[in-house]
């Protein structure tokens, strides 16, 4: 087992237990691995790389409840990254989409690339298109950093509506990015 695997896994497990700093570091370090992984494989679509990094990060965040703590983190993250990449290639009509080689899962953590390019789609602009019951919870809780209670008071929504709004809003955001391609 590689040391990155252990380190990232530890960060994610702590993050899922409520440690926001660890979770931030997890996403940050994983994004560098994702970027290097996609850059190497999408040399013909290099301006899509950053969008795919963002889409994968959203997917990983939205699907974090599917991580089984007994399973290698690399296998989980690799499966999601590869799924999102094949999905992009299919949508681009790239014939080779069906023949993306089955690389080793450990390939995901082989390199890092923290030189973020520009994303073609602005997540903020896409966020503005969400319905209010999803947009406001995300804006207050995830961007301004208010607590769920504060956001509930401010918007007049219930606390559970705020939580559901964040959850559904991020899923809707992921779907919007996917459909923009």
């Amino acid at each position, binding site marked *: 087992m590689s040391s990155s695997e252990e380190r990232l896994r530890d960060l994610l497990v702590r993050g899922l237990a409520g440690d926001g700093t660890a979770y*931030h570091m997890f*996403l940050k370090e994983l994004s560098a691995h994702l970027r290097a992984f996609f850059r190497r494989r999408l040399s013909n679509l290099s301006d899509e790389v950053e969008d795919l990094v963002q889409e994968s990060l959203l*997917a990983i965040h939205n699907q974090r409840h599917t991580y089984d703590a007994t399973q290698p983190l690399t*296998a989980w993250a690799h499966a999601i990254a590869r799924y999102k990449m094949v999905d992009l290639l299919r949508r681009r009509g790239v014939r080779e989409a069906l023949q993306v080689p089955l690389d080793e899962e450990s390939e995901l953590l082989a390199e890092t690339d923290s030189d*973020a390019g520009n994303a073609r789609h602005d997540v903020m602009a896409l966020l503005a298109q969400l319905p209010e019951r999803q947009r406001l919870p995300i804006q207050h809780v995830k961007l301004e950093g208010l607590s*769920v209670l504060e956001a509930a008071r401010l918007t007049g929504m219930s606390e559970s509506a705020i*939580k559901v709004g964040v959850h559904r809003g991020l899923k809707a955001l992921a779907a919007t990015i996917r459909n923009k391609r």
Partner: protein
Amino acid sequence: MKTDDLITMLAKGPAPTAQPGTKRFALALGWGMFGATLLMALLLGVRADLAGALAMPMFWAKLSFPAAAALAALQLARRLARPGLRPGTAPLVLAALLLSSWAGAATTLLAAAPDARAALIFGDTWRTCPFNIALLSLPVFIAMFWAIKGLAPTRPALAGSSAGLTAGAAGAAVYALHCPEMAAPFLGIWYVLGIALPALAGALLGPMALRW
């Protein structure tokens, strides 16, 4: 939005609430089986000689083989619904169930007189059996797709076929309460075909219905 800002946004806010997928699958199989039993009772009817059948070992074999297959396929589906989990041992269990049912069928056929074999294979209901099983598989089929959709299958065709397999096997177990056939060769062919139909449908529908 820069990727770093997206990361900050995702990491901010209250701790995520974990929602394990186990309950979803228990719900799916429970409600699905309820629906299948209801369908069977309303459309086909429980076999009239059920009380007598309860004393026959073959009746219990007919019930327990598909039930065991449904549980193994459920395990498989639960794994395939999550990114990066390998199928595990469930395919071996499924293969062992299939092979032992075929071994039983072959033994029965070889022991029977040649002119009795056709009756053992076709029984009275071979034309309708696979389609009835496929029909009874529908409630579990829909429920399993719902359960998997709440997770994140990265191999949707495989995940779909495991959902179909669960549904087909559950449907066959319920159908056994209606079906009067008791010959191992009949079960080894037509029950297996009835289970294979929803599995195939699941493999075809998975890539469309389970996309995320």
